[in-house]
């Protein structure tokens, strides 16, 4: 799978997300990133948390205790870093959309054929005709779907 984030982009994206959202805990930040980037990127604390620690180490963000968790906020150097380089989140989101997963229609049809619970049952001529008619209807509906332009977010 193609990587959505290039080196250092996650940290910059976290700064931008903090700038947009205001102070936030880890989960809220991950949510902001996931919403902006879309389904191609699987949010994971294992990636975001080290980025937060590194940013804290660098003095770009600060953390305060907030109930059971930690809330992160931008420090002045972090704010300056966002001002210097905005647009990382947009860039990453654009890239994520361009590598969006695409599937063959044949794969979907195979999946249907190989997983349908009745696939091993035997039917008489009458039932065969009825099932053929159902499938012909499905084929027409699929053609109609394929004729529509795809949504481009």
């Amino acid at each position, binding site marked *: 799978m193609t990587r959505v984030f290039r080196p250092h982009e996650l940290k910059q994206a976290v700064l931008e997300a903090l700038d947009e959202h205001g102070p936030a805990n880890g989960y809220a930040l991950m949510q902001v990133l996931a919403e902006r980037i879309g389904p191609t990127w699987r949010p*994971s604390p*294992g990636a975001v948390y080290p980025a937060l620690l590194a940013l804290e180490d660098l003095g770009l963000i600060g953390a305060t205790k907030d109930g059971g*968790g930690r809330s992160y906020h931008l420090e002045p150097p972090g704010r300056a870093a966002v001002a210097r380089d905005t647009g990382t989140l947009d860039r990453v989101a654009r890239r994520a959309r361009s590598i969006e997963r695409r599937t063959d229609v044949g794969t979907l049809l195979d999946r249907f054929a190989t997983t349908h619970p009745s696939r091993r049952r035997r039917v008489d001529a009458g039932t065969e005709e009825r099932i053929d008619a159902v499938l012909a209807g499905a084929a027409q509906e699929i053609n109609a779907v394929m004729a529509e332009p795809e949504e481009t977010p």
Partner: protein
Amino acid sequence: MDDFARAAFREREAKKVIRRRAFWLHFAIWAATNVLLVVVWAVTGAGFPWFLFPLLGWGIGLVAHGVSAYLFADVDDVVLEREERRLRD
């Protein structure tokens, strides 16, 4: 330590376990294949020890896999390990 940090540690730990299991699977396949080759060599007259070539050649790859599974860590792993030590102390 908050939930988010705990989730991060758990995720890293799981990845490490998977990486190490993958290495042992690789090792098992390497060992089984080479035992078979040694047997073939033995029953065909035990002449020139040609089985050493695949054994050592593939062995280089196996050692590299072991090194990456057990000795190498990426930056995130190092950052997390340091934080874990700090939280424990």
